[in-house]
């Protein structure tokens, strides 16, 4: 199965290496493999570039042909979000628990001031309780899952600490109401 998709998407906010200012992606071009033979160099048409519109006063300020590799994404949780979307497809050995109904991602400092990314998977309150008690088995399943997710996220090599947890979805609704 394919890995996470980290390709740029129209609408994403980025900075460009060596350039000042904030840009929005308005077009994405991908290199297309035209000829591939075992042991031979791959021949492609086009290249992985984006078109950008500068954010701010002059919205007509557009630049094209910017390589994907020179983009710096404003959303620091982007890579984490992409990985979790990929996990929802149940890749390889990792089973995405069907009782998880959503997730939250937050970039902030942890209690000790370490820049961190917090991921919280949410399940319905009912899932956590059985016969009036918390279900140890279900909590164990989620604890195991969050550790596996953390391991995958650590593999991204981000500069931020990674915290992966789970919680009751009702809390999110309480906050919203």
């Amino acid at each position, binding site marked *: 199965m394919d890995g996470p998709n980290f390709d740029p998407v129209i609408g994403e906010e980025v900075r460009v290496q060596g350039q000042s200012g904030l840009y929005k992606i308005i077009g994405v071009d991908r290199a297309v493999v035209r000829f591939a033979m075992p042991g031979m160099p791959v021949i492609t048409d086009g290249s992985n570039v984006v078109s950008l519109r500068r954010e701010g006063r002059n919205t007509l300020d557009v630049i094209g042909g910017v390589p994907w590799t020179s983009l710096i994404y404003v959303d620091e949780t982007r890579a984490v979000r992409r990985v979790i979307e990929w996990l929802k497809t149940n890749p390889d050995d990792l089973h995405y628990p069907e009782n998880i109904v959503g997730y939250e991602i937050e970039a902030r400092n942890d209690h000790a001031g370490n820049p961190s990314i917090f991921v919280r998977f949410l399940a319905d309150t009912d899932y956590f309780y059985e016969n009036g008690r918390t279900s140890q088995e279900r909590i164990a399943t989620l604890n195991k899952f969050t550790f596996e997710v*953390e391991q995958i996220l650590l593999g991204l090599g981000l500069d931020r600490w990674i915290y992966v947890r789970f*919680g009751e979805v009702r809390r999110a609704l309480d906050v919203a109401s």
Partner: protein
Amino acid sequence: MLLAEELLGHARFLANLDPGTTTQANIRRAISAAYYAAFHLLAAEVAEQVSPDAPPGLRERTQRALGRMQMQKVAKAFSQVGATKVRDLPDDIILPQPVSRELALIGSRFKELQDERHAADYDVSKHFAPSDASAQVQKAEDFFRDWKIEKSSSNAPVFLASLMFGRHWNK
């Protein structure tokens, strides 16, 4: 019984209270006790490794000298399964084997327990559910189980020494 084990039992007792009638105080104390169980387990192991038990009180003083921030950094450094190098370990100290799943779990759980403990003790804007207490207590119980396996590994002495001396090693 060791203090660490007492704290773990206390955390479990609080987490097992009836979810329908338990209080924020019980839940928060369960989360806090779960962390301190893990903390004192490691602290006692570090002290045993680096200090003799005589004269009386020496080992306990050693245990008291541990810093939670340093422990958190080391826990994080050892939290990736299969890592062969960990952050802040001097170049001349080679990990005898890649970080095992148990050691990575210990590292990961420690930093999780510590951060959650901080919120439970200080963040009054946060609401904790009974399942939050159960999750943290189960992490602490797993922590004890994993340490039982890991403590005889060749990485364990490096891990324990790092908890105590890590920030002074690269002077």
